[in-house]
C-alpha cells in the first residue's frame, strides 16, 4: 500500500490530482513536524508558536510564527463567547436547533476561512519551500502537521526511518 515506503513508490501509484498534492509526486516525504496545542489558556484552541528545529533550514522563523499566530486568532474568533454567539445560541434553542439545517454555525464559517487561509499559505509560502501544512481539523484539532518534502533524486534519502530521529538539514 502506498505510503509505507515513500521513497520510490510515490511515482508509481495513481492518485488523485490536487494542486498541492502534485508536490508529493515529484518530491518524497521526508519527515513530519507536529505543532502541539498550547493549553496554557484553557481548553480554547491555540497552538504553540515555538519554532521547531526541523524547520530551521527550511523557512524563516517570522513567517512560521505569523502563520501560527493568524491561525490562533482565527480559532479565538470562532470560539469567542460574546454577543453574536449568544444570539446564535438563543435563536438556535428557540427554533429547537432546526435553524442549523439552513444556516451554518459561526464556527463552521470560520473553519472555512481557515481552510482557505491554509491553502493560500501553502501555495504562496510553504510549497515553494517544500513544506505542506495540513489543516488541524483533519487531525482532530490536536496538531498542525507540517510535512517536509525533499526533491526526489537529490540525496538518497531516505524514507522516514532514518530521518525520523534527525533533522532534514542538508
Amino acid at each position, binding site marked *: 500500500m502506498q505510503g509505507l515506503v515513500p521513497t520510490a513508490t510515490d511515482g508509481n501509484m*495513481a492518485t488523485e490530482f490536487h494542486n498541492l498534492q502534485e508536490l508529493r509526486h515529484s518530491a518524497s516525504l521526508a519527515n*513530519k513536524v507536529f505543532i502541539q496545542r498550547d*493549553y496554557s489558556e484553557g481548553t480554547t484552541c491555540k497552538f504553540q508558536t515555538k519554532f521547531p528545529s526541523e524547520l530551521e533550514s527550511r523557512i524563516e522563523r517570522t513567517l512560521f510564527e505569523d502563520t501560527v499566530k493568524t491561525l490562533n486568532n482565527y480559532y479565538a474568533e470562532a470560539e469567542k463567547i460574546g454577543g453574536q454567539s449568544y444570539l*446564535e445560541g438563543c435563536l438556535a434553542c428557540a427554533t429547537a436547533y432546526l435553524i442549523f439545517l439552513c444556516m451554518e454555525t459561526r464556527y463552521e464559517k470560520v473553519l472555512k476561512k481557515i481552510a482557505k487561509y491554509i491553502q493560500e499559505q501553502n501555495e504562496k509560502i510553504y510549497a515553494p519551500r517544500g513544506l505542506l501544512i495540513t489543516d488541524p*481539523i483533519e487531525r482532530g484539532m*490536536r496538531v498542525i502537521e507540517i510535512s517536509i518534502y525533499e526533491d526526489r533524486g537529490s540525496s538518497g534519502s531516505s524514507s522516514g526511518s532514518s530521518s*525520523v530521529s534527525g533533522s532534514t538539514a542538508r
Partner: protein
Amino acid sequence: MHLGVSESMRECEYSQISTRSSTPMETPYKKRTPKKRKWESFPGRNKFYCDGRIMMAKQTGVFYLTLVLILVTCGLFFTFDCQFLALKLTPAIPVIGGVLFLFVLGTLLRTSFSDPGVLPRATPDEAADLERQIDVANGSTGYRPPPRTKEVVINGQTVKLKYCFTCKIFRPPRASHCSLCDNCVERFDHHCPWVGNCVGRRNYRFFYMFILSLSFLTIFIFAFVITHIILRSHQNGFLKALKESPVVVCFFSVWSIVGLSGFHTYLISSNQTTNEDIKGSWSSKRGKDNHNPYSHGNIFTNCCAALCGPLPPSLIDRRGFIQSDTPQLAPPTNGITMYGATQSQQSHMCDQDQCIQSTKFVLQAAATPLLQQQSSEPVILTASPENGGSLPGRTSLTLAGPCTSLPLGQPTPPTSTPSLSCHEATDIHPLQEPLAHHHFLTPEEVPSPPGMLPCGSPMGHSHTMQASFFNPASQDSLHEDSVRGLVKLSSV
C-alpha cells in the same frame, strides 16, 4: 507551482494518472473497492445509522426504555386527562403539554444521535512522533518508562494531562476516555445509558435542555394529573380516579429528574463536569489554592458559556470518504510501539488485536519454562503469581508498547469511585436509578474477578497490579485483555 527543477524532472517521469479518468492501466484494486465512508472503519465501539448521520453508543437498550417511558406517560396523559382538563379548565393545557413533549423529544434525540465530541485517534505518524518525544525525555533506555503525563498550568492551576494508550494522544484538559464507547471525548461529562450516548462538549447543552424540559414536563403532568384526580373525585370516588392516571410513573420520575436537573444546574453554574465533581478535582479539600481554572468567575457567564457558547463541529468526519493515498512515513523501528504488525492506513489489526496476539504469544512462551529478559523483546509481561513457585522459573517480563496497561499513575476513568453514590444520594431521592447506572457501569464491565489478581507479590510491579484492581479496566479495553492474560498466566 514553483517547483523549479522538479518541474522538468516531472515531465520526464512516468505520468501520473488521475483516478477520475478511467483507464485499464490504473491500479485495479482502487477501481474494484467501492469508496467507504469513514464511519465504517471507525475504531471506537459506537454504532452508526443512516449512513453515518446518527451516532450512538453500543448499548442502546436503555435509550429505547427512556423513549417508551416518555411516550407512554405522555400518551396516557393526553388520552385520559387532557380532554377533561381542557373542558374544565383551559385548552391551553394540552397545548403547553404538547409543546413541552415535542421539545423533550427533540432534545433527547439530539443528545442521543450527535457526536459528543469524540477525539479521533492519532495517526500513526503523530503517535510515532509522540513516542519519540517521550523517549527523548526519558533518556530512551530500553526499560519501560514511567506513565506518561504532562503538566500544564492553566490560569494559575496545575493540570495533569494524561496519555491515552488507546487513542495514542495526550488528552486535552477535561477530556476523558469512555471505556464503554472506547473513545476519548472532549469535556467528558459522563456516559448516559438513558440517552444511549456519552455526554460531552458537543451535546451537553442538549442533554441539559432535555433533563430540564423533562423536569418541567413531568411536574406539569404530575400537577395536572393530581388536579384531574381531585376534580374527578368530587364527582366519582377517589380510587376510581386514581386508577385512570399515569400518576405512579410520574411520581418516581419527578424526583429523580428534578434532582438530576438541579445537580446539572449546579455543575453548569460552576463550570464543572460530572467527572470533575465526582473526583473532587477542584475542591478546596485537595489543596489550599485548588480552584477551577475554567470557571469564568460568575454564575451568569458560566451558564451562558455552557448553553449559548459556540457549538464546535464534529472532529471525526463520519461521512467523509476514506482517502487511501496520503503518504506516510515508514513505521519507526523502535520495538516499543510496533509489534509485528505492519502499519497500514486503514489498519485492519487494531491495537486490541495486537495486544491479544502478543499476550497469547507471551503465554505460549511462558508455558515453556524460560526466563526471558526484556532487552530487545518488544512485548514483555509482568507476572507475579500468587501461589509462589508454581510457575517454574519466574518469568519476569514487563508489559510494554500497546499493552502498557498498568501505569503507575491512576488513569482517568469516567466514573468509578464508590463514594459517588453517597454524593448523589444526599441530593436526590434514593430511588435514583439513572445516576447509579451512570456510575457503576464501568466496574460492572470488568470481567476478571478481583480476587484472582495476585496481591502482595515481591515483584516491583505488584502495586501496579493492585492499582489495576482498583480501576481494573478503566478506559482501555487493552487493560482487560492484558489483565485477563496476566490472570491466566498466574494461574498456570
